[in-house]
């Protein structure tokens, strides 16, 4: 609607020309071009590590480019830091950015230069009023006085989003804002974004969820290896074209064929009660991919954490094959029994960012790389090499710090670490969060291979198509309880959603 009526004389709201940026020998950006019109939602797409987040940080002055130029309304600008960019109306919600846990929701929303003040004194009434306005725009009922750290992850994301809205930005950049949201919140978010666009805000939208892009965006730019491949109107493009441009070859099938699960029981869960989880019982079979769905906060993550020994439960039993797990769990014991968890928050739970790939992989495999308390460098390097090869981890070598890898490759490190344990039951919490389509397909294939090899995979996902596509069987949770179970082959979005809202059983 607004994509075509911009005349060529009107300067672009934001333009990036031939940006180069390298880190320690990695060329993150090699001549990127991006131009965003006033009043459009512009999708920025690309594989993990394509350089999207780096470009965002160059635009907002966090990184200084090696060369290249940023133009705002046709004028060349240089931002020394985030504050200067914000004052010029450019505001970003960063990929890894979250909230400040120890201060209130209201203050989180009105942070920094947004804090209303007179002579250095905070105007609390004004602050609360304006914070409330932002939450209202997003349809969020979050108490302003709560400490942000007490909110659920979803609410935290919404608070961070409210903060971005509060700045009244003219150029708003969102780096994977929906990665941890579910459909309800996404709908509210999109409504706000459309309204902003109609008010003339230029929005850059980075996402790996391509359906969203086609639903929301006006134009798209695809990046690959730090370069711009194509910029196009969304209406003139389609998913296949986007994928092939992103990965540089024709798109294959996203989800592999389902396998044939055995009837041999691999995991039995009986009467499990935790903080949120209530009376959960189910079984999973050898070679089966069991998907778990549900709304945010429905207790899926807690269930996996309990199974993995990472969280206490009050009652219930977990049995792997024939062997019952001890009632006071620990991750070590669960691992020994053959249960491994790929957690939900990669950066804070999955990998040690400051440690090398091989140290990360070794960490979960201490028993197998050591004898009599002494670790063997050779064994570590063997399992690391195998993991990096099997999962095609792109890195300079086993000694590279995980913090320097792209999100997708970080996720593969987490997987490699747990797969080296050869688990009987692999628990995966949002296994493809923030991961590009190419890598997603790889991970689905991997899940299938594991299942075919006899592993039981239990995967939590918030994306219904993914849940259906990768699973053999699906369990849906609602407020801590199992509200429905269905064979994936016969499942559809509508049915799953009714279970999600706990309406049928």
């Amino acid at each position: 609607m607004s994509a075509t009526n911009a005349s060529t004389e009107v300067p672009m709201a934001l333009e990036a020309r031939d940006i180069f940026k390298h880190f320690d020998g990695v060329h993150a950006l090699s001549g990127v071009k991006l131009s965003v019109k006033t009043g459009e939602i512009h999708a920025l797409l690309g594989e993990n590590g394509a350089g999207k987040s780096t470009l965002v940080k160059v635009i907002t002055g966090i990184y200084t480019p090696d060369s290249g130029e940023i133009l705002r309304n046709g004028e060349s600008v240089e931002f020394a830091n985030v504050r200067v960019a914000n004052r010029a109306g450019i505001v970003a919600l960063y990929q890894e950015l979250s909230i400040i846990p120890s201060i209130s929701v209201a203050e989180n929303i009105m942070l920094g230069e947004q804090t209303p003040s007179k002579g250095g004194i905070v105007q609390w009434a004004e602050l609360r009023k304006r914070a409330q306005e932002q939450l209202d725009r997003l349809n969020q009922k979050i108490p302003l006085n709560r400490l942000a750290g007490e909110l659920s992850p979803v609410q935290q994301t919404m608070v961070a989003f409210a903060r971005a809205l509060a700045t009244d930005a003219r150029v708003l950049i969102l780096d994977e804002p929906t990665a941890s949201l579910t459909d309800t919140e996404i709908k509210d978010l999109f409504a706000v974004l459309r309204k902003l666009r109609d008010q003339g805000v230029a929005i850059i939208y980075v996402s790996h969820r391509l359906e969203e892009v086609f639903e929301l965006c006006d134009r798209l730019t695809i990046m690959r290896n730090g370069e711009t491949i194509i910029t196009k109107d969304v209406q003139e493009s389609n998913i296949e074209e986007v994928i092939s441009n992103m990965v540089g070859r024709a798109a294959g099938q996203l989800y592999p064929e389902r396998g044939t699960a055995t009837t041999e029981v691999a995991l039995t869960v009986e009467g499990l009660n935790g903080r949120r989880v209530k009376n959960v019982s189910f079984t999973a079979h050898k070679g089966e991919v069991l998907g778990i769905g549900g709304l945010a906060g429905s207790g899926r993550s807690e269930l996996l954490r309990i199974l993995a020994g990472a969280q206490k439960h009050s009652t219930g039993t977990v049995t792997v094959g024939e062997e019952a797990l001890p009632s006071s769990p620990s991750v070590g014991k669960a691992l020994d029994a053959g249960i491994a968890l790929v957690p939900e928050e990669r950066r804070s739970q999955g990998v040690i960012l400051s440690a090398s790939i091989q140290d990360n992989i070794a960490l979960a495999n201490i028993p197998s790389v050591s004898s009599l308390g002494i670790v063997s460098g050779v064994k570590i390097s063997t399992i690391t090499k195998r993991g990096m090869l099997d999962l095609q981890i792109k890195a300079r070598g086993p000694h590279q710090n995980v913090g320097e890898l792209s999100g997708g490759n970080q996720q593969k490190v987490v997987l490699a670490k747990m797969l080296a344990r050869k688990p009987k039951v692999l628990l995966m919490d949002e296994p493809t969060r923030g991961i590009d389509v190419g890598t997603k397909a790889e991970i689905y294939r991997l899940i299938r291979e594991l299942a075919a090899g006899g592993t039981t995979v239990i995967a939590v996902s918030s994306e219904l198509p993914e849940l259906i596509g990768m699973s053999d069987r699906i369990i849906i949770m609602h407020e801590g309880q199992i509200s429905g179970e269905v064979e994936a082959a016969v499942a559809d979005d509508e049915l799953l959603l009714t279970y999600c809202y706990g309406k049928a059983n």
Partner: protein
Amino acid sequence: MTTTNAPARAGQAIGRMLLQGGTVVALLLLIIFFFAMRPDIFLTFVNVKNILYQVSILAIIAGAQTVVMVVGDFDLSVGATSSLAGAVAGAQMIGGAPIWQAISVALLVGLIVGLVNGVLIAYLNLTAFVATLATMTSVVGFAFLVTEGTTLFNFPAEFNELGQGKFLNIPIPVYFALVISVIIWAVLKFTTIGRSWHAIGGNVEVSRLSGVNVRRARLLAFTVAGLVSAIGGILLAARLGSASAVQGSDNMMFSVAAVFLGMTVIKSGMANLGGTMIGVGIIGVMSNGLNILGVNAYIQQVVTGIIIILAVTLSGLKTRER
């Protein structure tokens, strides 16, 4: 992260409050204990005044420490800075300078030390621990140079009056401690810089990316800490009527301990002025009470450590989950 089912909510709430306020409970227990042991003395006006007098300077320096710890840092140099400020003021007065000038120069010295800390930490990215450890070392050296290693004394009576005088039968340093605490509390609570400090203490990176001027705010925090420590040091010199290079050096450890004790008081677990004052109270009551009971100095020291552990453990229980 405690959640339960509907029943027994009230009982649990009280339980939580007790744990939450573990440090407050610890203070109350201490008071009750010492009162029970010596009801004739402990809560008399004279003794309470005494306790207040004894902790007033620690309270000021712990206030300075609170500011820095709200930002998520440490300042190991507060004690040394206060000694240096006292020494500088003393040396000035002995050299014949008028009182106002002596005090101004001493405050300036504190400000400069704080500024140096701030620059090192906020702009040169040194860890607070190393930077303030290093400045502490240098500052003690300066204090030795200023005092030539001796104890300076013989200050004008009007100066000593600042530390030894009374108003309404309450020693003047108590008022100073009160006023400075209230100011720091208000700055932390009501000003934009105070809120920035809290934000930075919560998460530096998020604050920076959200447009908080992190460097300036940290610089300011350390500068304030230096200045306030100097006030404490000047008052200590006036209070004792003398100044030496090492006087009040244990204020550093105790100020950090007080802030840590106080951090357990509030839910977010951050440094906060109210909590710090409770921490200061625990330290003051403990030392006064043990003295009143006539406990042997060595055993006092053993007991002091144990009481600190008990106080913190009491409130630590609440976060033991997981």
